């Protein structure tokens, strides 16, 4: 057991800690690599624009987090605790933002609310470019991340608690406050920490739609891509790690209070039809889903239109990728291969790792450290992660430098990039499985790996499938880190889309984006089919 934990520690050290160290250490160096103490920090903090960026970042992150959390919680509640119609449909639609490369929503928001936008008047004279656009974009982008955690948290509950509450004549509001909320407290806190960190460090949305409303992530871009100043980039990169550290502290405190919901004697909760409630939640869910579909629909329109906004006749020519550049469909298949590898390998490592962190005995400090490490990737902007990988894996004296420039480095990097949410999903699912299973197994002298394979994996299979789909779709859309690591043979579709847009061919870029969406959506459909079969086989115990 301890051996496995150490192995996981080694993996995270090589793919996360050491690369980040090679870059972040530059924050204490000057351009020639000499140690200069905190001189870079002093210079950075002397810049009045920096404090503004910091305040701006906190401002949009806080507002974005509150809105996203509220919407995602209601939506997750509607999916798991009501009998409203069309739950399968709503569940699928909620994933749209994950399937779409950030280029698409950025563009769609401009087409919807920009100065030529169809719904510009809805902003009452305000501009989409700036905090309003950032918050809208971030809510769109962060929504499914919050949802995946909250759905996991809400989908398991002990029905006996609700029966007891009802027989004590507790009113629904009271039941909600005293049973439902405490039950998903851990999920709520992790979801809010995840979204806050995500928005705090995201660079794609502010770059596209932030105007010159500076946030820390765009500062990193300015320093690194605009001025090749890796040292100052590292300074800002370190600041961006702050929320991850805070998250970790909060997470520790919460974990102590969380009790396993699914004790070995639990009876799963089965939502009962409540016509009025179901209808209210249906309307709420429909409003959210409608917005998501509107954004996607606008992006689809953008990929079909001849010349926005001056020639709105439709054409399919932007989907002829051979015309748009030298690469044709090659990058598409590279993307597919990378996403499949990330999903297969990443799920095994992350779920296995989460199991070790959550269920093994002893080695408390090591497990705590591993959990902290798992929280870090979320807070690392792609630029920082990508450059770190160059500095670490391309170093001439690194024995691993043979993987640089190959598909392997893209896969390892992408697994690292999306580690945190997958890890938290796995932990949330695992927390709901009573530790008694392990105790009973131990007293029956059943080895731990068999309990893992025969009990834990089947019980958590829906979460495992969710994680693999999450990794797949993110690998299809990711740009910010891999843009520094791909080579001529491993060029990805998502990068091609960005470059096409840079070259001024926005509609063709949209078409590439829509192809990614369609692929991921097809995979998601397949996932739902498998899930249904799996649930019939392994999740029968959730029903009575």
């Amino acid at each position, binding site marked *: 057991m301890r051996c496995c934990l150490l192995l996981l520690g080694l993996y995270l050290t090589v793919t996360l800690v050491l690369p980040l160290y090679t870059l972040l250490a530059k924050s204490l160096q000057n351009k020639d690599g000499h140690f200069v103490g905190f001189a870079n920090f002093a210079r950075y903090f002397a810049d009045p*624009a920096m404090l503004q960026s910091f305040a701006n970042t906190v401002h949009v992150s806080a507002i974005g987090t509150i809105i996203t959390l509220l919407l995602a919680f209601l939506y997750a509640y509607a999916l798991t605790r009501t009998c409203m119609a069309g739950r399968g449909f709503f569940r699928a639609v909620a994933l749209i933002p994950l399937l779409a490369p950030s280029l698409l929503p950025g563009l769609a928001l401009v087409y919807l609310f920009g100065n030529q936008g169809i719904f510009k008047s809805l902003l009452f004279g305000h501009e989409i*470019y700036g905090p309003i656009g950032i918050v809208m974009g971030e809510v769109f982008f962060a929504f499914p991340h919050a949802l995946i955690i909250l759905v996991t948290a809400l989908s398991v509950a002990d029905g006996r608690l609700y029966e007891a509450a009802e027989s004590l004549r507790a009113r629904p509001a009271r039941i909600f406050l005293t049973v439902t909320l405490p039950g998903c407290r851990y999920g709520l806190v992790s979801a809010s920490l995840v979204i806050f960190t995500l928005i705090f460090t995201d660079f794609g949305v502010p770059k596209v739609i932030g105007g010159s*409303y500076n946030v820390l992530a765009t500062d990193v871009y300015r320093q690194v*891509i605009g001025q090749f100043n890796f040292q100052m980039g590292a300074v800002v990169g370190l600041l961006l790690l702050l929320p991850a550290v805070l998250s970790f502290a909060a997470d520790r405190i919460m974990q102590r209070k969380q009790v396993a919901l699914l004790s070995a004697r639990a009876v799963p909760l089965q939502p009962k039809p409540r016509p009025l409630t179901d209808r209210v939640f249906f309307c709420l869910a429909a409003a959210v889903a409608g917005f998501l579909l509107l954004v996607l629909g606008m992006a689809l329109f953008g990929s079909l239109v001849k010349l926005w906004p001056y020639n709105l006749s439709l054409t399919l020519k932007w989907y002829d990728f051979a015309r748009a*550049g*030298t690469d044709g469909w090659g990058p598409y298949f590279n993307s597919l291969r990378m996403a499949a590898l990330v999903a297969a390998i990443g799920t095994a490592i992350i779920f296995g790792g989460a199991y070790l962190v959550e269920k093994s005995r002893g080695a408390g400090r090591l497990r705590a450290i591993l959990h902290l490490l798992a929280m870090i990737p979320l807070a690392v902007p792609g630029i920082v992660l990508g450059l770190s990988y160059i500095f670490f894996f391309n170093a001439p004296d690194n024995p691993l*430098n043979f993987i640089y420039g190959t598909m392997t480095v893209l896969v390892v990097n992408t697994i690292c990039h999306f580690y945190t949410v997958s890890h938290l999903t796995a932990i949330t699912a695992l927390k709901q499985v009573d530790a008694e299973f392990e105790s009973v197994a131990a007293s029956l002298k059943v080895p731990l790996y068999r309990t893992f394979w025969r009990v834990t994996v089947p019980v958590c299979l829906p979460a495992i499938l969710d994680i693999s789909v999450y990794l797949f779709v993110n690998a299809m859309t990711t740009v910010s880190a891999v*843009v*520094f690591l791909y080579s001529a043979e491993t060029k990805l579709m998502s990068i091609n889309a960005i*470059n096409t847009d840079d070259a001024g061919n926005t509609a063709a870029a949209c078409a590439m984006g829509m192809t990614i969406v369609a692929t991921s959506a097809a995979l998601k459909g397949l996932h739902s089919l498998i899930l249904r079969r799996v649930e019939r086989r392994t999740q029968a115990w959730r029903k009575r």
Partner: protein
Amino acid sequence: MNNWISRRHTALMGLAVLGTAAILFASAAPTLADDVVLKVYTALEEEQLPIYKEAFEKANPGINIEWQRDSTGVISARLLAEKDNRQADIVWGLAATSMMVLDKEGMLESYRPAGFDQIKDDFKDLRSGWPTWVGMDAWASAICFNTVEAEKLGLPKPTSWKDLTNPVYKDQIVMPNPGSSGTGFLTVSAWLQLFGDKGGWSYMTALHDNVKTYLHSGSKPCKAVGAGEYPIGISFAYPGVKLINDGAPVEVILPTEGIGWDMEATAIMKGTKQLTAAQKLADFAASADANKLYNASYQVLARKDVAATLPANYPADEDKLMISPNNFYEMADRRQAILDEWQRSFGSKDAPK
């Protein structure tokens, strides 16, 4: 609680996952021919790549180009980050200002390509007889102007930099942030050279009142103008010409006072294992044939002996308006100070209102 997955079923699933992974990994590794493969890093436009590659390979059988293309900022950052273990053999088509940064890091090999005497002085690294980089073609700042939106707003067409400070343009102009974009910096550095330091900064202060936002890319202001988001964008000619060719109601204006410019350049990476092949590419990049190819996208070329024609819809007189001399080295030395000053004065304009 029985009826778990059967053991066989689980084992099969595990096998399936492993099998998929194995197949996916095995399908890697393309076969290598005997030809020399040159790793060429570039920021050229995507559509130019197949044309340039074909022309070079036809003239130099046995050498194959493998492109690594990205935007100027990304590819430069990547080259710098790879400094200790360089992957590129040669850079073909990257801003000279980026080349100077690489040169300062000692990453470029000195080489004087064939036909070097036919390269115009402005396009040469003249500090010593053995240049580390050689220019290919030039691109200069320009104003993109959306005629349809301007008419709706009743805006006159600007013809000079000074025109842009006219209060009628309040909040109608977008330009690149010089801290994020090379185009932004070359424009600012041209103002400082044209109007002098004091005049340059006071010009920017006046312009600042009319600027709606500073964007993080050099071509984005023009593209936003093409999409009708703003009537006026400070950018460079290439994206504007492309928009016109696509049918957007855009005009590309070269301001009468003079325009800042940068060039695309070629440089061999020091330490390349393919030095001979890289030198052949450097020779080709400086040749008359290559310059004719550059002429499809740019008006101002490096060679004296190639008569440049005006690409379709390209604004006239770019060559006459480009400031000369353009003090690249002085501006490169002052870059940090200029950007700090700019950031202090204009960087945090858009606080929440």
